[in-house]
């Protein structure tokens, strides 16, 4: 059975592919795709940057486009001739220098200055043209060398002329007109550019020299065979490039009236990107002024988008996606009202204040055998207050980072965890040396966690091993509290062994491990997990080695440093109190994430670190006492406390003072140095 041929002939008559085929023969078809891309970019930028198409912005953009477009045409001509000109960036800088020297330093007439600038461009272009066209050197290498030569001349001359250029002032209305003027609402420099672009287009498409350039670029041999003077044509292409570059430089000089050491650096790469992106062939022979224009506009728009939308927002985006909260349900916090051991009182209310205004951020405090008081400050110092009245003080050591936890070893060296740096040792005469700043890198971490980011507190075991905590490996010292929003196990317990000099990670995935103290048994230590509101005990030696158990759970606040008390128990600083609302947010991780993304950091819900207290526990982990300052103005947040000879000394990382109170029922001869290391020899 045969089908009646009706549909098929008709279909081919109406929808022949002839139109498309003929369209594809047009030379400008090369520009269609870049033009479409440009159109898309224009639409995108008009959405992304609302003011971009305002008159003021457009006027400025079109002036930049004029200069950049001239360079793009210059390079297009060279590429059409089958060469490449890498020197146009340096050539541009050199011409800018000539123009500005003429106008600002020598003060000659603008015509002479323009002539001199063109001459500079001509000479540079001619040098390239003679070397490549007549002597026959490779274009890539030659212009790379002239790039260096022109740049060197600029770098030598610019410092000598810089003050003259900046100090001088060009008295020329025409100069200002070119730089800032407008004619029929269009910037003058853009009009100049448009005229030049028009003539360049005519030259390349309608005049003999244009055809010759294209022919040479398409095939040197065929061009030669058809009688074209190849050498001269090539040289002319480079000279055209030089002249156009000089013109661009002149417009640039008129617009900015000044230049800098980085003028023109990398410009050749931008221009090359522009013309290649727009379809000018690197192999030569194919391309047009239209390509150059499209490419120039495209690259300028991409640069603006990149600058305005990415460079300026990268940190913002990072800040928004970095916080990664997790689910953490805490039990209902114990009451801090009457009847509870945590009941608010005013035992710290009449604390003696030490060093108010002279220390900022005394996270930890410690006393030596002579009773002198030491603390770290956020200025990167360890300050020593002299006994007995703690009025006289000095900078004991300068470290650079904020010293947090402090501990004395058996020889009287002061060891400290320094935020952002590592563990450091300060000898009794104030000499600072590094103990450790890195540990073994974990296998699954994207960020390099071998470096210590936020070492927090430390203590020293009887055998000399240093146990210290790193509160979080995801946040810097200044944003430590943001880690609370995550509630994730970002921290670790580490051990430095002085025998081997090695640091290793003992426990990881801890929730902001903070204070650490060696128990009197010498086999175990206590460490606080701040955001989890608990104290853990870990055995690092003896028969129970490697065991970890919870020592104290569900505190009403966030535990910070832990230190021994004279009666065999421990002091624990609560740097802030839990609030039911924040506890509730810990059960809503996506809420916290959205909060971090959508509202500014100063309005994030936060642990209440404006109000803290000190609690005392016995050796079995039973809370026996709490000490508060009811008003919360002198010592709003306590991050550390140290018992010494019947007094309790109190530090706070957000505070600018140290407090001390007399303890009613304490051993007046008890000193931690003796308790740890025995009587001094």
């Amino acid at each position, binding site marked *: 059975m045969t089908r009646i041929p009706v549909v098929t002939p008709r279909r081919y008559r109406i929808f022949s592919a002839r139109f498309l085929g003929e369209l594809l023969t047009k030379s400008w078809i090369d520009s269609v795709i870049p033009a479409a891309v440009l159109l898309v970019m224009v639409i995108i930028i008009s959405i992304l940057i609302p003011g971009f198409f305002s008159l003021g912005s457009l006027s400025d953009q079109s002036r930049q486009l004029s200069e950049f477009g001239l360079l793009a045409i210059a390079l297009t001509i060279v590429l059409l001739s089958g060469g490449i000109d890498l020197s146009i960036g340096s050539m541009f800088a050199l011409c800018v220098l000539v123009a500005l020297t003429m106008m600002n330093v020598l003060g000659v007439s603008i015509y002479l200055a323009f002539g001199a600038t063109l001459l500079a461009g001509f000479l540079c272009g001619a040098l390239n043209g003679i070397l490549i066209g007549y002597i026959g050197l490779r274009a890539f290498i030659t212009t790379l060398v002239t790039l260096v030569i022109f740049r060197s001349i600029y770098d030598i001359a610019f410092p000598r002329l810089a003050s003259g250029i900046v100090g001088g002032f060009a008295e020329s209305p025409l100069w200002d007109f070119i730089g800032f003027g407008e004619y029929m609402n269009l910037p003058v420099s853009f009009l100049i550019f448009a005229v030049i672009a028009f003539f360049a287009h005519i030259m390349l498409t309608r005049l003999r020299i244009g055809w010759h350039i294209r022919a040479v670029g398409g095939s040197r041999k065929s061009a030669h065979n058809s009688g074209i003077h190849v050498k001269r044509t090539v040289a002319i292409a480079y000279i055209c490039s030089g002249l156009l570059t000089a013109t661009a430089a002149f417009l640039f000089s008129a617009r900015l009236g000044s230049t800098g050491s980085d003028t023109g650096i990398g410009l050749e790469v931008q221009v090359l990107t522009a013309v290649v992106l727009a379809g000018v062939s690197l192999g030569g022979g194919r391309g047009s002024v239209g390509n150059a224009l499209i490419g120039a506009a495209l690259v300028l728009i991409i640069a603006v988008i990149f600058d305005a939308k990415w460079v300026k927002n990268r940190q913002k985006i990072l800040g928004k996606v970095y916080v990664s909260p997790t689910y953490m349900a805490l039990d209902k916090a114990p009451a801090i009202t009457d009847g509870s051991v945590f009941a608010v009182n005013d035992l710290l209310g009449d604390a003696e204040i030490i060093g108010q205004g002279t220390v900022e951020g005394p996270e930890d405090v410690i006393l030596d055998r002579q009773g002198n008081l030491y603390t770290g400050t956020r200025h990167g110092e360890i300050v020593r207050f002299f006994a007995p009245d703690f009025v006289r003080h000095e900078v004991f050591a300068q470290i650079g980072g904020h010293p947090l936890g402090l501990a004395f070893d058996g020889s009287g060296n002061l060891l400290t965890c320094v935020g952002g740096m590592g563990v450091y040792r300060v000898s009794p005469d104030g000499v600072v040396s590094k103990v450790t700043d890195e540990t073994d890198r974990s296998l699954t971490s994207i960020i390099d966690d071998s470096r210590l980011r936020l070492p927090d507190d430390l203590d020293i075991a009887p055998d000399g091993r240093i146990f210290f905590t790193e509160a979080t490996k995801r946040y810097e010292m200044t944003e430590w509290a943001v880690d609370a929003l995550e509630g994730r196990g970002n921290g670790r317990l580490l051990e430095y062994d002085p025998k081997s000099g090695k640091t290793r990670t003992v426990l990881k995935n801890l929730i902001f491990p903070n204070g650490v103290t060696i128990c009197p048994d010498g086999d175990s230590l206590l460490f606080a997990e701040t955001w989890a509101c608990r104290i853990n005990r870990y055995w690092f030696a003896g028969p129970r080695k490697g065991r970890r158990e919870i020592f104290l759970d569900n505190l009403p606040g966030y535990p910070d440093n832990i230190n021994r008390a004279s009666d065999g128990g421990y002091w624990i600083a609560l740097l802030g109190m839990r609030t*039911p609302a924040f506890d509730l947010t810990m059960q809503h991780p996506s809420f916290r994430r959205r909060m971090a993304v959508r509202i500014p950091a100063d309005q994030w819900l936060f642990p209440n670190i404006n109000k803290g207290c000190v609690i005392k526990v016995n050796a079995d982990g039973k809370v026996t006492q709490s000490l508060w300052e009811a008003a919360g103005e002198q010592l*709003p947040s306590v991050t550390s406390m140290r018992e010494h000879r019947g007094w309790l000394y109190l530090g706070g990382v957000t505070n600018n003072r140290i407090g001390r109170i007399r303890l009613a029922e304490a051993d007046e001869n008890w000193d931690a140095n003796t308790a740890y290391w025995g009587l001094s020899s």
Partner: protein
Amino acid sequence: MMRLFGRRQANQSDHGLYVPTMDGPLRPNDHLDRASIVWTGAHIDDLAVLNGELVFTSENRLLSLRAEDGEVTLIKAFDRPITALAVAASGLLAIALFGEGLRLRSADDQWQQIALSEKHSACVTALHFDADDGLYCAIGSNANPISAWRRDLFEHNSHGEILFVNPAQARVRTVAGGLHYPAGLVIDADGGLIVAEAWAHRVVALSPQGAFKRMLLADLPAYPGRLSVDSAGLYLVSLFAPRRQIYEFILREPGFLQNMLAKLEEDEWVGPTYGRPRSANYPLLQGEVRQMGVMKPWAPSSSCGLVISCDGDFAPLESWHSRADGQMHGISAALRFGEHIVAASKGSGSLLMMRAGASDEH
């Protein structure tokens, strides 16, 4: 791009998370903290002027302050809290008693009682007489008592009403309903109603019949409360608590919000307050962390003090502030009293007096 592709469900949109900054006539200062305190007492609330004396309410007491010597005398104490106060040109005085209704005192000291329904009497926020001794009555919400105003905010309610009471006939008529917590009310020169809708952060003009006429102040940076107008036709707007982005955010987080309302005590909620929260359980925002012993004045505190004066067209002229480091928060009422402006700071329990126009000097 966000605008093109970022549209999510309505409560996820960033639109509305923005709280306008205080600028221009609203530029922050500390004028409220520098005002003279003429009386202190907890729960000071509403103000009015009667025969040249300042009349004000504090909890269940109606008091008056003599202009010459500042002496305060008790007019009458009631068995329940007074929630609003108004004085007519004729000398008629009206108060709203929580859970009961209205009491009116004539110029010859006769008290008259007008009962309101339970849902109305629990939330009378403001009273204002018209020229003929007719009484307009703002009901913040018919769903929550006035003490639960925070809950009303978090429930996204618009259950406010305006009632009209004719004292002669003791008749009550509803003029307008469905308002976003009307917390302030005055009558303009043409007899039209001007209402502060707190939860919508705006002041609107309504016709005497309650129909919407036009917007007077929109998108205020704090929750507007009581309004007053002086003889020159200038208005004072008292704003009782600040808006914060975190509150706007929580209002758009139904999951967290419901849990907060259901599981937490009211003094543990995140939200605006009249005064600085006393509860240790009140949550903190990062910007409120006390650094080096100092609370920053621009900290995002849950309370603030703010009075704005406006011209006859409600264009803001100047403002009196108490910022995060100040005390004079939660301004519940303000009015012109002779040469002065008096303001009731409910958050601190203080009656403040300032020279009018004093802020020009600074």
